[in-house]
C-alpha cells in the first residue's frame, strides 16, 4: 500500500522535471554523422560516376528495392543505364553502402523525405546522383596501386597511387583520416 502511494508521489514530482521532447520542426534533433538516411550516388574526384553497375548493392539489399541496368561507355567503362531506388520499401539498413566496392552508393544524414504521392518515393538516377564525392573525398576506384615487387612497394611506381585503406569504414577511422 505504501509503495503505491510512493509511486504516485514520485510520478507527481515528474511535473517539475525538464521535458525530454524535442520540438521537432522548430528544434532540430541531433543527427549523428553516421546516420543512415536518404541514399545518394557519388562521383569520383574527376567528376565521373563512381558506380560500375556491379549489382552488388541490389543483391545485398534485403528488401530488393534497388533496380539498375548496366551498360558501357565508349571506353568500355561500365556505368548504370538507369539506377532506381524505391524508398517506400527501403529500410535504410545500409547494406548497399557496405556492399559497394567503389564507395558509389552512400547513405546521408537527410531523413526528411515525406511525400504526398507514393510514386514520388521512387528515386531515379537523376535524383540520386550528386556532383560531389560524398563521404570519401579522395577516393577513385580506377586509381591503380599496382603490385609490390622486389624493391618497390604497392603504389610507388610511376602512374601508381598508394593503396586505399580497406579498413577506413571501420568505426573511429574517419576522424583520424581527416
Amino acid at each position: 500500500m505504501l509503495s503505491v502511494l510512493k509511486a504516485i508521489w514520485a510520478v507527481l514530482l515528474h511535473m517539475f522535471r525538464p521535458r525530454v521532447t524535442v520540438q521537432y520542426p522548430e528544434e532540430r534533433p541531433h543527427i549523428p554523422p553516421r546516420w543512415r538516411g536518404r541514399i545518394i550516388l557519388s562521383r569520383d574526384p574527376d567528376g565521373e560516376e563512381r558506380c560500375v553497375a556491379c549489382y552488388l548493392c541490389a543483391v545485398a539489399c534485403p528488401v530488393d528495392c534497388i533496380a539498375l541496368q548496366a551498360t558501357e561507355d565508349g571506353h568500355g567503362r561500365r556505368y548504370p543505364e538507369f539506377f532506381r531506388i524505391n524508398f517506400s520499401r527501403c529500410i535504410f539498413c545500409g547494406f548497399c553502402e557496405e556492399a559497394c566496392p567503389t564507395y558509389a552508393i552512400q547513405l546521408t544524414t537527410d531523413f526528411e523525405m515525406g511525400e504526398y504521392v507514393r510514386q514520388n518515393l521512387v528515386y531515379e538516377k537523376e535524383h540520386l546522383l550528386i556532383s560531389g564525392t560524398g563521404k570519401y573525398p579522395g577516393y577513385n576506384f580506377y586509381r591503380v596501386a599496382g603490385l609490390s615487387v622486389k624493391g618497390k612497394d604497392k603504389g610507388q611506381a610511376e602512374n601508381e597511387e598508394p593503396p586505399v585503406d580497406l579498413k577506413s569504414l571501420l568505426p573511429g577511422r574517419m576522424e583520424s583520416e581527416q
Partner: protein
Amino acid sequence: MSEALRSIIIILSVIGGVMTIAAGLIWVERRLLALWQDRYGPNRVGAFGLLQVLADMIKVLTKEDWIPPFADKSVFFLTPAIIAITTLLTFAVIPFTSTILVADLNIGVLFFLAMSSLGVYSVTLAGWASASKYSLLGGLRAAAQMISYEVFMGLSLMGAVMLAGSFDLRVIVEAQRGLWYVVPQFAGFVIFFIAGVAETHRLPFDLPEAESELVAGYHSEYSGMKFGMFFVGEYIGITLISALITVLFFGGWLGPVLPPVVWFLIKTFFFIGFFILLRAALPRPRYDQLMALGWKVLLPVSLLNLAVTGGIMLAGR
C-alpha cells in the same frame, strides 16, 4: 421566470457542461499524462493544443462505423448508448450548488447506485454482442469486476448517509457545513474512490480493456462513434465519480469567498486530475489480485467502517 423554463435551462446547461467537460478531458488527460511523463502532449493544434479536442472529434465522427457480420447487431448497436445515458442520467441528482440541480431526489444516492449497476450491462453486453473472444473475455471481467466492486461501493457510501441521516445528496452536503465527511469517513472515502476507479474501469483497474492482453477488451470490435460513445461514457464516468466524491466527502459547493459553483468545479477537477495521476503512476494488477483486494480487504473494511460509524453514532445519542 417560470419554474419550468428554469428547469429546462438547468437541464440543458448541465448536459452541455458535462459533455463539454467529457470532450475536454480528452485533451486534459493527454496533457496531464504527458506532464507526468516528462513530455508535452498535444500542443500543436490551436493554442496549447486545445483544438485537439475538435480534431479528435472530427476524426472519430468520420471514421468508418463498422459492425462485424458475426455480431449480435441490435445489442451491439445499443450498448454504447447505455453507458453514456446511465452516466449522464446520474448527473440529474448531483447538486452543483444548493439551487443548481436538476432533480432534488430524496433517494439520490440510491439513484446513482442503480444507474451505475445499469452501466455494467453496457460493458458486459458489448463484450457479449461482439462475438469475439477478446471482447467476451473483457466483458466477463467487466461483469465480475464491476458487480463485486459495486457491493462495497454502496456500503462505503452508507457511512456518509448515516451521518447525514438522508439519501438526499443536497442534505448530505448541507450536513457537512461544520466538518467535511472525509474526516469522520476517511475509510469510506478511500474505499469509494477505489471502487469508483474500478467502476469506471479506469487504469489501474482497466482489466476489461487491458490492451496488453485483450487487444482492447470489450470494445475491440467497435469503431467510429460507437467506440467514441464508450470513450465519452468513460470520461463522463470519471467526472461523475469525482463530482460524487466532492458531494459526499468534500462538502460539495461549500467553501469560503468564491461562488459555490466554482468551489464545486475546483474540487471536482482536483479528483479528475487524481484519476489521471493514478493512470500515469500505477500498473494494472492481475485479475485475481483485483478480486482478492475487493472481497478480502475492501469489503471487510467497509463493513467494519459501517459498524464503527454506527456504534459511535449510537454511543453519541
